[in-house]
């Protein structure tokens, strides 16, 4: 069961990384235009 010493912090760390990623994306305005983002993904690249 010693493996828990590694696994639990690892799991929490990954979760926290995900949360920080989400907060960053929220702060940089990525949720301001959900309709537009859906289209931009398939738009042609700028020449």
């Amino acid at each position: 069961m010693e493996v828990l010493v590694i696994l639990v912090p690892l799991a929490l760390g990954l979760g926290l990384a995900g949360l920080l990623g989400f907060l960053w994306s929220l702060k940089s305005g990525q949720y301001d235009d959900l309709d537009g983002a859906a289209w931009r993904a398939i738009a042609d690249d700028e020449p």
Partner: protein
Amino acid sequence: MQAVRDFSHYVRAAGSGLSHIDLAVEGVHCAGCMSKIERGLSAIPDVTLARVNLTNRRVALEWREGALDPVRFIDQLAELGYKAYPFETESAEAAEAEQSRFLLRCLGVAAFATMNVMMLSVPIWSGNVSDMIPEQRDFFHWLSALIALPAAAYTGQPFFKSAYQALRTRNVNMDVPISLGVMLALGMSLVETIHHAEHAYFDAAIMLLTFLLVGRYLDQNMRRRTRAVAGNLAALKAETATKFVGHGEIAEVPIAAIRPGDIVLLRPGERCAVDGTVIEGRSEIDQSLITGETVHVSAARDTAVYAGSINISGTLRIRVSAASEGTLLADISRLLDNALQARSRYVRLADRASRLYAPLVHATALLTMIGWVLLGASWHDAIVTAIAVLIITCPCALGLAIPTVQTVAAGAMFRAGVLLNSGDAIERLAEVDRIIFDKTGTLTLPELDVVNSAAIPPDVFELAGRLALASHHPVAAAVARASNARTPLPGVVEEPGQGVLAFVDGEEVRLGRPAFCGADQLANEILIGDPEVSAVAFSRGNARYVFAVRQRLRDDARAMMAGLEMRGIAVEIVSGDREPAVRAAAQSLGICEWRAGVTPADKIARIEELKQQGFKVMMVGDGLNDAPALAAAHVSMSLISAAHLSQATADLVFLGKPLAPVVAGIDFSRKALGLMRQNLWLAVGYNFLAVPIAIAGFVTPLIAALAMSGSSLLVMLNALRARLVAQRRP
């Protein structure tokens, strides 16, 4: 006199030598529009940012300070085929956007906490039936507490605040049992963890918050979307005023930049956008938007003019007394305040449900505890069981039951052309059994129309239309519109208050008052036949023609009446207009109940009278004079072309020329109300299935988690049915 357009009011400094402006753009629908606009605008030198927001249909632009005039962007967009206008974020909209971000942040944190607590809970559940050692369980419980407690303290804020506010005013809303349930569950779990107990409910508490935040966020997003669309439409109306800057120089500035004390120029055919008094000039003004009265009033020095009136014949100079947001008749705003207070007495379905639900649940928990103590259980066990009852009945699904239906129904109504201004409007709209329509601008089209076009030869009509293009007069504008003329005649001279004249192939052509064209007799014949029309005469050489111009009913007004009748809704017209005009409209629509020459106060009186008789009244209107009546009615609808104020007070706003959205709105909201009730029963029923288990003391955290997520999924899936409404053809 072509004034300069000045948009400097809207330009903000974006720092590091850049200027920023937001434009509302009409007609952006797809990715194609998006890249077309972005490429078109980026092609202008010195533009550093051009980004379209497809959700709220706006463009953000940044450029090197001083290098460009914002007018350039508007013209460029016009070339690309889009109508655009600078946009200023209202404080209300900015606050909503901030609130929406806060909810999303809460949701993110709550979801993170739920996932991690679940990761720790699942081993405990499975460990409890296998071989987990107590120390390990305690360790996992402490870890859960470490995650859940701070997360709940942060993400529970929207609920705790709202519950506190309700309790302070001695009320109960849905947030009271939610907050109580969450706090008790967390508190009990902490105590149990300290005592090395087997069960802790950290997962249930934080999962509850996550589900509820989904509901809150959806609800908030729906309102934000409506507000953005309404804001764009207000901006695209592009209300400007011609202001005097310096000696005799004029500039066209947005209304937002006008201050009291400024002097503005009001030319014939222009709509006044400010309140003020005339200091120079003589004219007739149309105040139908304010009073509903279609007869023109004469204006001279010292006459007060109000925002919304249209100048008909002469040019006026006006000293502004109130501009932009202050432009209201004091009387109307006073009536409005009273009416809005009455409106706030309406209790939402969710709050009514929680008023029944909360005492019932709390009483059950209390009885459970007393029962167990009487049966000889220890106080500790009795309290734990009682709290389990509270957790299992916590209105998780109840919190989702209504917002999810509202969101789906609002989306469907949005596509049908109806925008919601307030969340509970759906509930109130569904109950309507009586509709009061305003006539001018609601049942009739806001613009005038030529009614005898068949009697005029096409070539004459076209020539008159080309001549009419030179005039600002609303009646002339109607002739120009009806003739589809595009190219104005050259060398047109305007005789103020009389008409316009020009020469075509050496022959004089005139358009204007019948006397101006020598067509009095012809005009009188038409006026005797129909006293409601305005006659405008046209002469070419010796030939004389008279156009009959009047307001026309909307094309689908009759179809809408039939549709409403089929749904068992009675209709009446209450208008500020003169009797013959109202009678004619009522007769052609087959409406027996109508009132003419009604003042704003009388409109409210009529609504109150109907309310006394037990009717649920909807008011549909557009004029400024309707605003108090819109606020007084049980629910109100307003046209998007309506004055700002009436949009702000109306619960629903609909777009476009047809009246069909009125019927569609009723259909969708009736369906939605049915689903909301169904959802409430589903949620309550599901939770109450688990109550006997909780009272018996057999509830484990696993059962609580299953009950909660199961019932939440059920109501969410049921809510999706709100978009399916059978389109009954009237």
